[in-house]
C-alpha cells in the first residue's frame, strides 16, 4: 500500500466498541481511512464516520479490544479506504480488507481502488439479457439467472443454501459458449467449516484457480464484515470493467452483514427504523447490490448472488424484505420442501426472476420457455388449496379434476424441482420435464399455452401409460 505520510495523533477521548472518538484533530475528512495503533504498536484499520469541528468519530475495523484512551495512536491517511486489486487475486484467500490469509505474499502490483466504488450511471448500463444455464431445473426453467443479474437466495438456518450456491458455481455456463466465470466469494461472519465446504467444492470441480475468497470469519471482529462485500466487489468491478471478465459474486451471509451494520448504528446512537436496523439500511444494501450489472463499452459482467438466512424463516424480516426490493428477483428456500427431502428446496411460488422474460425464448433457450413456465406457476398455485381441501374432506372425496391437481403438485415437486446435487440438466431436459409434468393435467386446463405450443409439445400423461406403484404396466 502507498504510504502518504499520515498525520498522527496520540490518545483518544472515548472508546466504545466499535468506535473511538478522537479530539483535537485538524484537516480530517469524512469517510477517510485511518490506522489505529494499540499500545503495543499493532495497527488496525478504521474509517471516519463523522467529523465535528475538532472531533472525529472513527469506526475501528479490527475491533476496539485492547485500545486505551491514553496509549492509542491514530493516523489519518487523507483518502478513502482502498484495496489493491489485480488479476493475481484469483486463486487466493483474503480477509475482509483484502489482506492475504492463505499464508502467501500480498499480490504484486495491481491498482489501488476506493472500496466504496462509484455509482454506475444508469444511462451507461447495458440491459442484461444472456441466459446462464445453471443445470438446476427450478432456476433455469422457472427463475432463470441472467448474466449481470442480482439474484439472491433467501434461505433459513440449516437449509442447503451453501450446497445450492456451490452447485451453481460448478455448473454455470452460457449455452453454446465455453467462457466460464471468475468467482468471488465474500463470506461475512461465515463459519470455518462453511469455508472448508466451499473450498473443497471448488477444488473438486477444478475451479479453485478462478476463485478469490474474501473471508471475515464468524470469530473475526464483527465490524470487518461491513467492509467485506465492498472489498470483494471492488475486485469484481476491476475484473469485469477493466479486464472484460465475467464475474460471479457470491455474498454470504447478508444477514450477518446487516447485523454488523446494526451494531455500528446502535453504537452511534442512531435512531433505528424496523427491528433496530438503521434507517439507511436500504441505501446501504443498494450501494452493494447495484454494483452488479453490465456497462456499455465493456465485455465483462458482474452477476451477484447474495445469500441470506431469514431469521425464523420470516420473509418479511427487514433483511430479506429490503433485499427483495433491490434485487432482480429472489430464489426462496422453503422449510416444508426441505423436510420432505427435496433438493433444492426452492419454493416455486415465492421465487421470481425479474430478468427472465428478456433472456429466454426463441433464439436464447426455446420458444416455449416463458409460456410453459407461467403455466406451471398458474397450475401449481392451485395445489395448496386442493391439499388443504383434501386434508379436510379426504382425498377420496375430491373431484377427479382436483385429484389430478394433487398428482400434478407431487410430480412438480418430486420430478421437476427435485434433482441431484451433481445432476446437471440442460435447459432442454428441464423444459421436457416441465411438459411431462404439465401433461398430468388435461389440455383444457392449460389456458396459458397457445394451441400452437400445445400441438407441438403437449403429451397427455394418462393414468394407464404410467407405471403404478407396483411397477405394473
Amino acid at each position, binding site marked *: 500500500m502507498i504510504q502518504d505520510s499520515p498525520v498522527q495523533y496520540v490518545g483518544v477521548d472515548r472508546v466504545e466498541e466499535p468506535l473511538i472518538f478522537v479530539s483535537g484533530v*485538524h*484537516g*480530517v*475528512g*469524512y*469517510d*477517510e481511512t485511518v490506522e489505529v495503533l494499540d499500545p503495543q504498536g499493532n495497527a488496525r484499520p478504521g474509517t471516519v*464516520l*463523522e*467529523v*465535528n469541528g475538532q472531533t472525529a468519530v472513527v469506526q475501528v475495523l479490527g475491533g476496539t479490544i485492547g485500545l486505551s484512551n491514553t496509549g492509542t495512536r491514530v493516523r489519518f491517511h487523507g483518502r*478513502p479506504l482502498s484495496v489493491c486489486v489485480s488479476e493475481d487475486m484469483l486463486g487466493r484467500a483474503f480477509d475482509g480488507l483484502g489482506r492475504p490469509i492463505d499464508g502467501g505474499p500480498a499480490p504484486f502490483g495491481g491498482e489501488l481502488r476506493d472500496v*466504496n*466504488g*462509484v*455509482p*454506475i*450511471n*444508469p*444511462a*451507461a*448500463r447495458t*440491459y*442484461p439479457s444472456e441466459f446462464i444455464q445453471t443445470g438446476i431445473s427450478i432456476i433455469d426453467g422457472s427463475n432463470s439467472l441472467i448474466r*449481470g443479474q442480482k439474484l439472491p437466495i433467501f434461505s433459513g438456518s440449516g437449509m442447503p443454501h451453501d450446497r445450492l450456491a456451490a452447485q451453481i458455481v460448478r455448473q454455470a455456463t452460457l449455452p453454446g459458449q465455453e467462457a466460464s466465470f471468475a468467482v468471488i466469494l465474500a463470506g461475512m461472519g461465515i463459519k470455518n467449516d462453511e469455508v472448508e465446504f466451499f473450498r473443497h467444492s471448488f477444488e473438486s470441480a477444478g475451479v479453485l484457480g478462478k476463485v478469490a475468497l474474501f473471508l471475515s470469519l464468524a470469530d473475526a471482529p464483527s465490524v470487518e464484515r461491513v467492509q467485506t462485500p465492498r472489498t470483494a466487489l471492488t475486485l469484481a468491478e476491476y475484473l469485469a*470493467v477493466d479486464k472484460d471478465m465475467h464475474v460471479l459474486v457470491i455474498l454470504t451471509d447478508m444477514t450477518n452483514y446487516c447485523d454488523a451494520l446494526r451494531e455500528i448504528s446502535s453504537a452511534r446512537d442512531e*435512531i*433505528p*427504523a*424496523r427491528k433496530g436496523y438503521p*434507517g*439507511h439500511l*436500504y*441505501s446501504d444494501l*443498494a*450501494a452493494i*447490490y*447495484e*454494483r452488479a*450489472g453490465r456497462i*456499455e*463499452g*465493456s465485455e465483462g459482467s458482474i452477476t451477484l448472488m447474495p445469500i441470506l438466512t431469514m431469521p425464523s424463516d420470516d420473509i*418479511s424480516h*427487514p433483511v430479506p*424484505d429490503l433485499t*427483495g*426490493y*433491490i434485487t432482480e428477483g429472489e430464489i426462496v428456500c422453503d422449510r416444508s420442501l426441505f423436510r420432505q427431502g427435496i433438493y433444492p428446496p426452492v419454493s416455486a*411460488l*415465492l421465487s*421470481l426472476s425479474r430478468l427472465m422474460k428478456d433472456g429466454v425464448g426463441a433464439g436464447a433457450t426455446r420458444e416455449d420457455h416463458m409460456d410453459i413456465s407461467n403455466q406451471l406457476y*398458474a397450475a401449481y*398455485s*392451485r395445489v395448496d388449496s386442493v391439499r*388443504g*381441501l383434501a386434508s379436510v374432506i379426504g382425498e377420496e372425496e*375430491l*373431484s377427479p379434476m*382436483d385429484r389430478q391437481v394433487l398428482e400434478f403438485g407431487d410430480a412438480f415437486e418430486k420430478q421437476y424441482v427435485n434433482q441431484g446435487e451433481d445432476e446437471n440438466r440442460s435447459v432442454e431436459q428441464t423444459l421436457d420435464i416441465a411438459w411431462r409434468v404439465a401433461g398430468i393435467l388435461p389440455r383444457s386446463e392449460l389456458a396459458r399455452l397457445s394451441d400452437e405450443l400445445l400441438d407441438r409439445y403437449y403429451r397427455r400423461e394418462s393414468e394407464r401409460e404410467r407405471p403404478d406403484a407396483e411397477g405394473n404396466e
Partner: protein
Amino acid sequence: MSGPRAQAGSIRRVSGPIVEAVGMASAQAYEVVRVGPQALIGEVIKLAGDVATIQVYEYTGGLRPGDGVQRTGAALSLVLAPGLLGSIFDGIQRPLSMLAEQTGAFLKPGVVADALDVARKWRFVPRVRPDQELRAGEAFGVVQETRAIEHRLLVPPGVEGKVSTVEPEGEYAITDVLCVMDGEAGPAELTMIQRWPVRRPRPFRRRRASTQVLVTGQRVIDTFFPIARGGTAAVPGDFGTGKTILQHQFAKWSDADVVVYVGCGERGNEMTDILRSFPELEDPHTGRSLMERTVLIANTSNMPVAAREVSIYTGITIAEYYRDMGYAVALMADSTSRWAEALREASSRLEEMPAEEGFPAYLAARLAQFYERAGLVETLGGDEGSITVVGAVSPPGGDFSEPVTQHTTRFVRCFWALDPDLAHARHYPAISWLDSYSEYVGDVADWWARFNPDWSAQREEMMNLLAEEDRLQQIVRLVGPDVLPDAQRLVLLVADMFKTGFLQQDAGDEVDTYCAPRKQELLLKGFVDFLRGTRRIIAQGAPIARVRQLPIIQDLLRARSVIPNDDEEALDGLLGRLADQLDELAREYS
C-alpha cells in the same frame, strides 16, 4: 434569478450527506450552495444563528472541517426549455446520457454539465407581433421539440407587458434572446429558457373537475378502477408483485401527451430497460416513438440519497411546465417509499424527533404537498392542462398499515392494491379487485357511457360476481365445490373465466399489452352476456357440465391476445357467436 454572490462559509461538521457550516448568517432556506474544493452541490435545509445545515447531493467523502462553502443566492432551480423530452436526468437535472459520454460509466462526484444542450439550434416560429399585449402564460412562439410535441414558449409567470421586438422565424439556441417585452417593471428579455425553483408549484388560473378517463390500456384499471385526467393514484405492493412493470405499462400506453417517469431509489437496470425499449415502441395514440414524449428522472438506489429526495420535485416541476403549455401530462413515481426513506435518513442525521417508525412528523405534509401538485387546471394562458400522478409505494414486509402507505391513501383517490397471492400465481397485473378502489368511477361514468350506455351496470355486475366468488371460495376451501348447487358453481366458473380472460393482461404479449377502450367495453359485454345467458339456462335446469362444454368459452378466454384492438368486426363476430350458442342451449332446455 439574481447572479451568484460568492460568499464563503466554512464547514464545521460532516456526517454522511449532512454538512454543517458556519459563517452562513445571510443564507436563505433552500438556497443552493457549493461545498468544499470539489464544489459539490448542496441545499440549505436549516438555519440557526450563523450555522447552516446543508444537504449535499453527492458523495461527501473527503470533506473536512474548515473547507469552504460558496453561496449561489438561488434556490434549486431547473432549466426548462426545448430538449427535455427524450432525455434522462438525475435528481438535480444533470444530463445522464451526456455525462456517460463525457466522464464514463461511473458517476464521479463534483461533475457539472449543462442540463440541456446550449449549442443545439431549434427552429423558432414567432406567434406575436410587436406592440401586442402579452400576459404570463401566453405563448410568444413555438418550437417543434419532437415530432409528437410542439413546445410552446410561454411568457414566464410574473412577466407581462407589450412586445417591443421579436425575432423572425429561424434557427436559434435556447439561450438566444427571442422576444423583448416592455412592462411596468421595465424591459424583459425572453429566451427559450425558463428557470423555476423545484420546490415551488408553478401557478395556474384555477382547478377544474375532471370527467375524462386517462386511458391506460390496462383493463382492470380503465374498466374497474379508472383514473381521471388530473387524478392521483397509489400502487402499493410488496416486492415481486409487479409495481414497476405496471408503472412501465402506464408510461408506455397511457394517452397522456407527455410522460415524466421518476425512478426514485429503484434499480438501475429498470431505467436502462426504459431507455432501451421506449425508442423502439410506438405510441398507439400518435404513432410516434414513445421516447419522443417521455422525460426520465433517474436517481437509482445507489445514487446519493439526498438527490433522491429532490428528484420527485424535479419530476413534478417538469410536468407542470408541460401542463402550462396545455398538455395532459402523466407522472409516474417509482417509488415514493424510497423518497420517504430519504426524508427519514436526512431527518435522522439532523437528530429530529421521529414520529412513526423513525419517519419525521412532516412526512404526511410532504406527501400531501406532492400529490396536490396534480390536477386538471386552466392554465395562465387559458388552456386546459393536467397532471396525473401515479405513485408506487413499497411497504416493508407488504404491510399496508405502515406510515407511507397509510398517509398516501389519505391524499390519493385511486388505490390499486397489489396482491402477492395473485403475483405468485403469475396473475398479472396483480391488482386485487377486492382491496382496490377508485373514487373517480362516478366522475367518469359518462365518459364510458359514450361507448356503452349500460357500462356502469355491467361493471357493477362483474364486481358483484367477483365478491360473491370470494365468499363462495371460503366454503369451497372447507367442503369442496361439488356440494354447491349449479347456480353457485356457475359463479365460480364465470369468475374464473373472467380472471383469465379479462382481468389478467400480458405485458409481454404484442396484442394484449395495450387494450383500447372499445375493445375493453366489448370484452366486458361478452363476459356479461355470457353470465346473464348461462344464469338463465341454469335456472331452466341445464346442468353446469353443458355450460362448460360451450366452445365459445375458449374463444372468450383467448380474445384478449388473439383479436387486435382495431378489429371490431372480429369482436362483434365473437359476441354474435356467443349469443347463438347461448340461444341454442337455451332452446334445448326451454
